[in-house]
């Protein structure tokens, strides 16, 4: 058969070359976004960090950069983040791991296929709605048990946050466990071990880096959470490690200041970018660690 016309081939080639460039733009878009975030955080927080001596960030006991006599103890905010994250992990890690083991090693396939998407829904609920639950449903409930609980508490926010991040632990954890080869389990079963024994002695260690990745990514998610803590844990920075207290997290502080007037370049404006920079570094660390762990898991598998 005579070959296609030269002209139509040339057109095809031209289209190919154009499309490669168009598609490449998409790839660049994601890089640009990261670039945008990093550059903005650096440039807009630089005035704050150059003005405030590093020492004060650590030694000041309160975080009140917008006051007449400003205090720059960022540890007040970090404490809030730490405690709420801690409470959340106390809920999500044990519960999520047990669920992961159950779904991976015990549950019948039909149940697993049904439950997994439903668990994913837990992380799809808008965080304002979770905030509502924490403040208006859970807190009154907890107050029935412990009447001295304040209206805003890190406990309440942390518990709801824990429920929100269960899917992070369960989904990744269960995937990691299921990819441990059946052959390894069979060795233990052949020796007479039971399902739980095999799960704890063979599967869990085998899936460990995958599970560790899941935990680390869950931590990252908890640290970055904003609305639940802003609504239910309080907006006043306070250096306290008592979950029954109210306190602001790094993220809640950003929300609180944003709710007010924010003229470009004002001290409030600079301080939220400073908080954002700190937040970015924290979550970046956790994310990179999490992905390194995941890579190690996949390579070992």
């Amino acid at each position, binding site marked *: 058969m005579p070959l296609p016309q030269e002209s139509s081939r040339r057109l095809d080639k031209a289209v190919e070359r154009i499309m490669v460039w168009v598609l490449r733009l998409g790839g660049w878009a994601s890089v640009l*976004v990261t670039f945008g*975030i990093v550059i903005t955080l650096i440039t807009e927080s630089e005035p704050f960090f150059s003005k405030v001596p590093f020492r004060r960030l650590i030694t000041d006991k309160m975080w009140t950069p917008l006051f007449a006599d400003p205090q720059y103890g960022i540890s007040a905010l970090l404490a809030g983040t730490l405690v709420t994250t801690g409470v959340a992990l106390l809920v999500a890690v044990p519960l999520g791991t047990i669920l992961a083991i159950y779904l991976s090693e015990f549950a019948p396939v039909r149940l697993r296929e049904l439950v997994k998407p439903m668990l*994913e829904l837990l992380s799809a609920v808008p965080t304002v*709605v979770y905030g509502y639950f924490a403040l208006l449903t859970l807190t009154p409930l907890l107050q029935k048990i412990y009447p001295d609980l304040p209206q805003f508490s890190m406990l309440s926010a942390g518990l709801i946050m824990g429920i929100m991040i269960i899917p992070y632990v369960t989904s990744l954890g269960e995937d990691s466990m299921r990819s441990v080869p059946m052959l390894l389990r069979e060795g233990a079963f052949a020796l007479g071990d039971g399902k*739980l024994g095999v799960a704890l002695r063979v599967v869990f260690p085998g899936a460990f880096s995958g599970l560790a990745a899941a935990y680390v990514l869950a931590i990252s998610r908890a640290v*970055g959470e904003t609305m639940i803590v802003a609504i239910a844990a309080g907006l006043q920075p306070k250096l306290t490690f008592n979950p029954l207290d109210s306190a602001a997290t790094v*993220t809640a502080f*950003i929300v609180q200041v944003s709710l007010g007037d924010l003229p470009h370049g004002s001290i409030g404006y600079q301080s939220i970018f400073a908080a954002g920079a700190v937040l970015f570094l924290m*979550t970046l660390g956790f994310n990179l660690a999490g992905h390194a762990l995941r890579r190690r898991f996949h390579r070992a598998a």
Partner: protein
Amino acid sequence: MRFAGDSIVLPEHFLEHQKGRALRRKAIDRWFGRLGLILTLGTLGVLAILLLNLAANGLFRIDWHFLTSFPSRRAAEAGVLSAWVGTALLMLVTASLAIPLGVAAGIYLEEYAPKNKWTDFVEINIANLAGVPSILYGLMALGLFVYKFRFGQSILAGGMALGCLVLPIVIVSTREALRTIPAMIREAAFALGATRWQAVWHHLLPYSTGGIATGVILSMSRAIGESSPLITIGALTFIAFLPPPALLDHAPYVSFEWVFSPFTALPIQMFNWVSRPGEEFQANAAAAGLLLMVITLGMNGAAILLRRHAQRNIKW
């Protein structure tokens, strides 16, 4: 997993010494199975209870008036009109940014990009973006879109912030959808003389539409529920007006003025009401939350069904 031997009764002296241990192991397994089931149902049950609570507190507030009124200082008269219109317009901007760029990036990374350090970097970068807290997208939008690009505290800035936020979701689901197509199909197309773009356009995109659509729906669902980036760029919580209309009754008949308009959104409105004391505002918050849940669950459910349907249709 049920074992065949679960219900077999063994003769008395089958396992002299270890019988106790074996029976104990079986009992532990049974208890753990029950524990797992209880915890699973319990976790899902907690979600169900919270939702029912939301409905109990807010369902009665949802009526035509609620959906078509502006917010008001009088709780009983307040409504979500400006909020849901704002959300809808925001989604328009978000979708027009995230979908083309995300699908293009997904195609590029999966079908074109050579395996080198630069591509690795892009992939790590996307994975990292997916884990960046949403409020940081708001901070970026504040510094870059609101001030540097001078878009102001507008739907454009908000939509772009959300677009950047959901971009990784679209990219990842596009890649995964493309990955399910076996290499042999690509080779068959190439062997017939197709260029890479022809293979993508004639085969890969049509066969992966289900998966890509699923990802798009999930990303939009995520965008609708986000509030912290919008708060940061200054979405106002009390807006008693709608953005200027997009369609005009005079030339040039289409206007983009709305893109630069201040705005509010459904989650922002809910946040505002939750922060106010008083049962009436709380009821409004519950109603807004219920609307958000219906939208979110609806979209997620649709995405799941779509994924199942697409998987059933094309068997590789």
